[in-house]
């Protein structure tokens, strides 16, 4: 690859938009060519310069209220989306309540009787519902801290497992805190990280056999989901971050976990 080609592909390269072959070609070229490598650095310096969280505007509360009022409602009980009556969440809690009544063993039997792909789809729906609820009701975190040494002990006594809480702040993923949540019917630890103003929820619980070890990608309504299993625990990461950054986050997160049974 010559310099002209390399420079023409530099932007898609730094945007993570190239296919693997060309990505590697550029990488090799940049190792050999100081001039192009400098161009790459300058290009990346622009991204650093504009990577300020405050540059992403957040919709004001007043707008949410206006939208509620803007649509004529044909129902007697309008849905207040900011409250805990998120429909998907309602379904999830209803399902959880019913299943809990049936009993834990019956629940496990039901879940296990699902083919794993259906199960994944169902869990992905639950992950999406939990994530949306967490960002809409301003209930992202129960324990607010950027310090993993505060977040990790907070879960003690609240769960029958101890989630690992990696510190990824040096890579630009700031710890925002943690909270207890439910995924379908089982308690999970939710860790919250922030990238610019994008929240990333990581749901953690002991793995069931049917969850895959390799990282799987799913999407729900523009939100990207990654699911994997590691050292006996199942992980779900969800965010409206782009694929590239979420993959990077998952890679860093996985690398920071204990490597026992990889």
């Amino acid at each position, binding site marked *: 690859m010559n310099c*002209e080609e390399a*420079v*023409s592909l530099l*932007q*898609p390269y730094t*945007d993570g*938009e190239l296919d693997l072959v060309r990505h590697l070609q550029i990488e090799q070229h940049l190792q050999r060519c100081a001039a192009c490598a400098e*161009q790459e*650095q*300058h*290009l990346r*310096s*622009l*991204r*650093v*310069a*504009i*990577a*300020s969280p*405050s*540059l*992403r*505007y*957040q*919709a*004001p509360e*007043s*707008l*949410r209220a*206006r*939208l509620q009022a*803007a*649509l*004529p*409602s*044909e*129902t007697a009980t309008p*849905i207040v*989306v900011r409250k805990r009556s998120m*429909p*998907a969440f309602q379904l999830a809690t209803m399902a959880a309540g019913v299943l809990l009544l049936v009993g834990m063993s019956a629940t496990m039997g039901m879940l296990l009787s699902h083919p794993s792909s259906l199960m994944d789809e169902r869990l992905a729906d639950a992950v999406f519902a939990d994530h*949306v609820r967490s*960002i*809409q009701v301003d209930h992202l975190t129960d324990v607010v801290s950027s310090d993993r040494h505060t977040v990790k002990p907070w879960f003690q006594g609240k769960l029958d497992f101890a989630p690992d809480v990696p510190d990824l702040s040096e890579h630009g993923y700031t710890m925002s805190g943690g909270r207890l949540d439910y995924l379908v019917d089982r308690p999970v630890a939710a860790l919250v990280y922030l990238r*610019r*103003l*994008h929240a990333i929820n990581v749901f953690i619980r002991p793995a069931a056999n049917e969850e895959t070890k390799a990282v799987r990608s799913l*999407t729900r*309504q*523009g*939100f990207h989901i990654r699911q994997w299993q590691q050292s006996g625990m199942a992980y779900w990461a969800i965010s*409206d*971050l*782009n*694929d*590239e*950054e979420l993959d990077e986050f998952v890679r860093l997160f996985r690398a920071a976990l204990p490597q026992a049974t990889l």
Partner: protein
Amino acid sequence: MEADERRQFELTTLPHLDAAYNLARWLTRDEHAAEDTVQEAYCRAARYFKSFRGGDGRVWFLSIVRRVTFDWLEKRRSQEALPFNEDLHDQSDESANPEFVAIRKCDEATVRQALEELSPLLREVIALREIEGLSYQEIATVTQVPMGTVMSRLSRGRSQLQQRLAASQEGGSA
């Protein structure tokens, strides 16, 4: 709108309200106009929701927001007789491979101003890529142009942004 349909509609659009507002806010450069255009887009989206066939709710909602917002920009330009904005129409002959210069981390106000001074089409693509984190394909779908056009706008936008930031640094603390 029936209750079930309305629930579906809200689930499709409201999780992306920040993304919608952010785009409208950067394009209009005005907080009240941004609220108005998002509300208009929300109502328009509700009318067209029957034609939404599932898939990526964010891209679908953002494409409506940007249409409403560009209508607003056009209307305002004709009302206020603002100078003709060449970038709403031009096919720039700027080099597709601009040379980039080094810039240091700038303060937020400088970046904000530099970004606001870009033409709407370039501001849009920078906001969608650098702030909202959309992929080229998603931006192409939102803006209804081919990927090649997305890439050339992004290239021009970054180049102009770099020049402005570099110039402000020379004139500033250097």
